[in-house]
């Protein structure tokens, strides 16, 4: 038997591992890293994790080094005598039974302490957020504020937020790695998770994910957590609490703004829109996290399917008043039944957050993303979404409205639906819902 080279790359792995571990500390390149100290929970967990990682790396190096040394040292040499036959050694075996025990004790003690600390009930006076999982988007309710929103969560820095986690369908799991560990959303059960973003945390956006497999679009069930200054949070919440009443006035203002925007190059676009109309400038809407402060990793880059055609030129001509009529006037219910699934507070009364199947749209235009954080919220994307949601997101349960589009839910072409112009009107209306 030929002797082959010994395993030399064991050491190489350590080096690579160490380099990658160092690199992992950079949140610039790794925006979803768990190696953070942004909240009290992450501080506790990482104190434990640092110890675990240190011990694990130590054990790894020692064991693999002994192994590599052994196979190098005791490789067969030609003409060597028969090795000494050893069948076992009780002392040695007791020793290396005890070694793991002594390694595990300093791991077990802080583990138990941290379990009981982090799973205690949230402190009184915490900000309450009810998280509802839906296939495949997130609903967030703030019962203390009467606010309901979707996929985008605002929380104030320095204040404990207590998440009450429930699901309306299958299991999901709520996770924003930069702020803390995950917790499952279990049907017919309520779970809790709480943490306090550091008081000195800069205003920023953390990406989050569903981490329990929940069907077709599990990968497309993302969320964003905006950590903002307490005063900004209050401003945001106060405005979100208001309904969409008075929208005709907003529409009038919107029209003026649009005509101005058409003359001047758009500077206030929320996010770059490929071939789309510029987003309307921000009006008096309470605090909204400025689009300009979003980092690249906060802006979804999900490709739009090539099959999705929409005449983006129509978006600039979108008539918000006509869109408002389409959405809210009962005579159009057959054509644009938006309000059978979506709640727009102030526009109708028969839906509540509990029986609305789709995301609450009362302030949809104040969000930077939609469809489970899959797309930037801009007129071009919203129009395509209304036209054919299932083509944009696998398994989406929203009806396909674009005339001539293939509806994978109905397994047929849509014959009675909305024209591109009508969709553009609806989008124009939605963009007033700031």
């Amino acid at each position, binding site marked *: *038997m*030929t002797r*082959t080279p010994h*395993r030399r*790359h064991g050491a190489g*792995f350590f080096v690579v*591992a160490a380099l990658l571990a160092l690199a992992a500390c950079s949140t610039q*390149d*790794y*925006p*979803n*890293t*768990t190696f953070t100290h942004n909240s009290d929970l992450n501080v506790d967990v990482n104190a*434990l*994790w640092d110890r675990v990682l240190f011990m694990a790396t130590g054990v*790894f190096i020692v*064991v693999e080094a002994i*192994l590599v040394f*052994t*196979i190098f040292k*005791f*490789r*067969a040499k030609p003409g060597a005598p028969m*090795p000494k036959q*050893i*069948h076992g*050694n009780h002392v040695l*075996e007791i020793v290396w*039974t005890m070694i793991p025990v002594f390694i*595990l004790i300093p*791991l*077990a003690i802080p*583990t*138990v302490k*941290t*379990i009981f600390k*982090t*799973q205690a009930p949230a402190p009184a006076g915490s900000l309450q957020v009810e998280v509802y999982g839906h296939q495949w988007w997130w609903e967030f309710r703030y019962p203390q504020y009467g606010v309901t929103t979707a996929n985008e969560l605002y929380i104030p820095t320095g204040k404990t937020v207590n998440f009450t986690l429930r699901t309306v369908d*299958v*299991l999901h*799991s709520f996770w924003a*790695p930069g702020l803390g560990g*995950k*917790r*499952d959303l*279990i*049907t*017919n*059960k309520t779970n809790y998770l709480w943490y306090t973003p550091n008081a000195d945390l800069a205003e920023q956006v953390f990406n989050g*994910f*569903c*981490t*329990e*497999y929940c*069907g*077709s*679009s599990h*990968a*497309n069930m993302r969320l964003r957590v905006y950590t903002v200054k307490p005063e900004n949070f209050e401003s945001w919440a106060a405005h979100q609490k208001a309904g969409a009443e008075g929208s005709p006035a907003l529409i009038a203002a919107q029209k003026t703004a649009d005509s101005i925007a058409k003359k001047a190059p758009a500077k206030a676009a929320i996010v770059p829109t490929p071939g789309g109309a510029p987003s309307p400038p921000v009006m008096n809407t309470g605090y909204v996290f400025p689009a300009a402060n979003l980092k*690249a990793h906060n802006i979804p880059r999900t490709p739009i399917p090539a099959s999705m055609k929409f005449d983006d030129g129509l978006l600039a001509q979108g008539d918000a008043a006509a869109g408002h009529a389409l959405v809210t006037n009962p005579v159009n219910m057959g054509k644009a039944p938006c309000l059978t699934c979506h709640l727009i507070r102030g526009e109708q009364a028969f839906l509540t957050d509990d029986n609305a199947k789709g995301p609450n749209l009362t302030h949809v235009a104040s969000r930077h993303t939609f469809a489970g954080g899959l797309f930037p919220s801009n007129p071009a994307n919203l129009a395509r979404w209304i036209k054919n949601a299932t083509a944009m997101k696998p398994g989406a349960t929203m009806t396909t409205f674009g005339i001539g589009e293939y509806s994978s839910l109905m397994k047929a072409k849509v014959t009675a639906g909305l024209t591109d112009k009508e969709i553009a009107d609806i989008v124009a209306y939605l963009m007033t819902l700031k």
Partner: protein
Amino acid sequence: MATTAAPAPGQTPTAGGSYAAGEQTGIWSWLATVDHKRIGTLYLWTALSFFIVGGIEAFIIRLQLMRPNGQVVSAEVYNQLFTMHGTTMVFLVIMPLSAAFFNYLIPLQIGARDVAFPRLNAFSYWVYLFGGVFMTIPIFFGAAPNGGWFGYAPLTTMQFSGGLNIDFWVIGLQILGISSLAAAFNFITTIINMRAPGMTLMRMPIFTWMSFIVQFLLILAFPAITIALVFLQFDRFFGTQFYEIAAGADPLLWQHLFWVFGHPEVYILILPAFGLASEILPTFSKKPLFGYNVMVYSGIMIGFLGFGVWAHHMFAVGMGATADTIFSMATMLIGIPTGVKIFNWIATMWGGQIRFTVAMKFAIALVALFTIGGISGVMHSSPPTDLQQTDTYFIVAHFHYVLFGGSIMGIMGGIYFYYPKMTGRYMSEKIGNWHFWLFFIGMNLTFFPMHFSGMLGMPRRIYSYDVGQGWETFNFQSTIGVMIQGLGLILFVYNFLKSKKTGAVAPGDAWGAGTLEWSIPSPPPEYNFAQLPVVTSRYPLWDLKHPEMTAGLAHSGPDAMTVTDSHATPMHEETEYKNAADLGIPMPFPTIKPLFTALFLVLMFSGLLFIHLDLFPVALTIMIGCAAAFVGSLYGWLTSPLE
């Protein structure tokens, strides 16, 4: 695989090759076989075929994830692929690869002429084959199971997964459970009753010991998943409400039942590989296994503790601090017997004369790579940190180090080690070396970066991820790694097929090992042992050929009471092929009835599918017809003479 012509009885094989004296050849001899060696061979070929299927699934998964927002497959196809990759590798590859070795080796290692119930053994195989085909076919029609290998309710209930996809999974797993249970009872009976004279339990080869433990795990773990599956099946077909959320079901019922099975299942997958490595390492170190007793006890300990840690898969479900603490501590405890095994393997090599055959390299790789999987296992035994890792790629990295680095590496070592015993020819060491290094490097390149993508926030089971999330490099590396593994797999298949005809001829004692299976010709004659050897120590063949190697072991001859077989003689080597009839050894008749019994059983189950196609009369006809045929075959089986 039809065999080549058999040599005349009494002739010593000179050219090697996959035959044994006096045996039937041709397709019929395989369909009707009740010989444990042939059944082991069938398991091996079938499981390796499924390994290629599962490998292709993995390859497509990695192509999809190579770049952000991958467009290779759709979300729906991806979900089917990852479900079937897991299901295939667990139930159709690693378990049956282990079963191939149980079948082939246990009777040879304990000095028996066959298993206790040869026909039941054939039945187990055919149920596995038909069940595996039943589960695999729908992937070619885009209708494969898509609920994950763990099939969490309520996603798998009719409300959220109409269609046949989940039906294939629910029915298929129950079918495979029948195969595993039948085999487990068979091997337990075999090991308890059919050991050669003098082979006490503590003289059994370590592979047989680990297999023995695994059979108990199987019969204790499979009922749990069977209950879970029957509940789900009744929900889906007959309107019960075990998991119906609208009726107030608690979905955690499924998770508890599933993981009460699922965690012991991990040890079902890994202990046979541990056993194989424990045979290979001493042989190529020219030293006996270090601390045999402790290796046995730690195996039992791992199997026992394995039933008390299931909820560590559920730290995120909100069980409460007390439950989290208990399951966390129990999980850490498992690290102790596992660590002992690692140290004992190293101590086995320490002071030895290590020959780096391909088999040995795979066994050493098992020690090196399982260590990594074991360490990362302890790392997320701590619930607070696990909440950052569970359902991320860190876990994917962890269990691939256990199941690929552990199970597959050990089994590959076992294949290179036992191939000469099975075929009479060695596999090519040259090609084997390439295979090993491609697997070893490819495996690490694939799975090591997953530790990082996981700690950097990448969730599992996602068909796509966005640009700029910090995971691109790691995913690209993983995909390259899979390509390297793919090359290794191609070389392995080539080596496996080619060596059967052109490999160097192997003697009975192909490697200088010490256990009974090496004391008979390669390949073994159908009766295995012409004279049953009387065993006086753990390494009977070393007793015979290298008494200095076992001088330190306790030796004792068997009591006169235990030697009742007129064929029993002192330990010896057998080199000749004889005719079983000439030796006066009764051999069980070949029979096709187990095959038909298995076939009708599987067809009976598949009749259920027609209920969901709204063809109730068809369903009823198939099920009643196949049930009748099943009973008929079984009656024929039970009433035909054995030998």
